[in-house]
């Protein structure tokens, strides 16, 4: 007696099992009958087969969409993270030890350059104070 599992199509079994012999006999009958089908019936069968395959592919479309959605989202997230991380890389400059050279450009002209060190008036008239310094070191030219 066959078990339900043994009678399932596609399950590999030795040829001497009764279920397999029935399957072989059924296939032989099918092929014999198929040889005697007239062309019109064969055409209708082919058309029915095509329709069945087409409907199967339509049913699989949402699955394809889901299959592409995940990698697309992952790629977008990675690209976005890279884009956001790139301009934020120089941020440590702002928190680094403050030096006059780095802070001069950062304050965008709101603050004078290194106000702890020098009066903006010195930089504003640097050539004048340079001339004064030269005269101070050479009193005879004054």
């Amino acid at each position, binding site marked *: 007696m066959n078990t339900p599992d043994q009678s399932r199509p596609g399950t590999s079994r030795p040829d001497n099992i009764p279920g397999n012999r029935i399957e072989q006999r059924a296939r032989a009958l099918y092929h014999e009958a198929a040889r005697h089908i007239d062309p019109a019936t064969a055409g209708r069968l082919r058309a029915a087969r095509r329709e069945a395959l087409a409907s199967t592919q339509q049913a699989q479309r949402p699955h394809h969409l889901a299959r592409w959605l995940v990698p697309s989202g992952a790629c977008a997230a990675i690209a976005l993270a890279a884009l*956001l991380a790139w301009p934020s890389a120089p941020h440590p400059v702002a928190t680094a030890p403050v030096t006059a050279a780095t802070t001069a450009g*950062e304050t965008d002209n709101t*603050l004078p350059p290194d106000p702890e060190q020098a009066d903006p008036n010195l930089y504003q008239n*640097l050539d004048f104070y*340079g001339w004064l310094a030269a005269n101070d070191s050479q009193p005879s030219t004054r």
Partner: protein
Amino acid sequence: MTLSARPLLSLILATLLGSLAAPALHAQGVPAPTAWNSLTPAQRDVLAPLRQQWDTLPPRRQQRMLEKSEQWVTLPPQKREEIRERIAHWQQMTPAERKQARENQRLFRQLPPEQREQLHAAYKRFQQLPPDRRAQLMKQWHAMPPAQRLRWLHRGQGR
């Protein structure tokens, strides 16, 4: 779905996801504005020349100034007053004057240390002179040809 449509779909999805996520992620890196009243009295004192424009400044710039002011408030009162006056003087300068001052600052940094010391000393001496003597020196200076005015600084650079 045809194969040729798949890359297009991926691109559209990536753009949509990116446009949805970008503002939220970008907002995380932007500091919140700091109200003038939330500054400490010492910070308000040293940054007083910026009081009128403080609330209109970008939060990042406010943050950088607060970082600097944290150092300034630890200085002696006289030094803090000096910095406050320098900030006030800077606010009165035109954009062209500020640009020139920054260029001169770069030039100053290229000078040898002893020449920078001489410049600082000359500046201090000039501030202590009586007004009429200052005016006399300025008049003498403006009477000189431009090339002669810059000779001393460029001599220092060429060392």
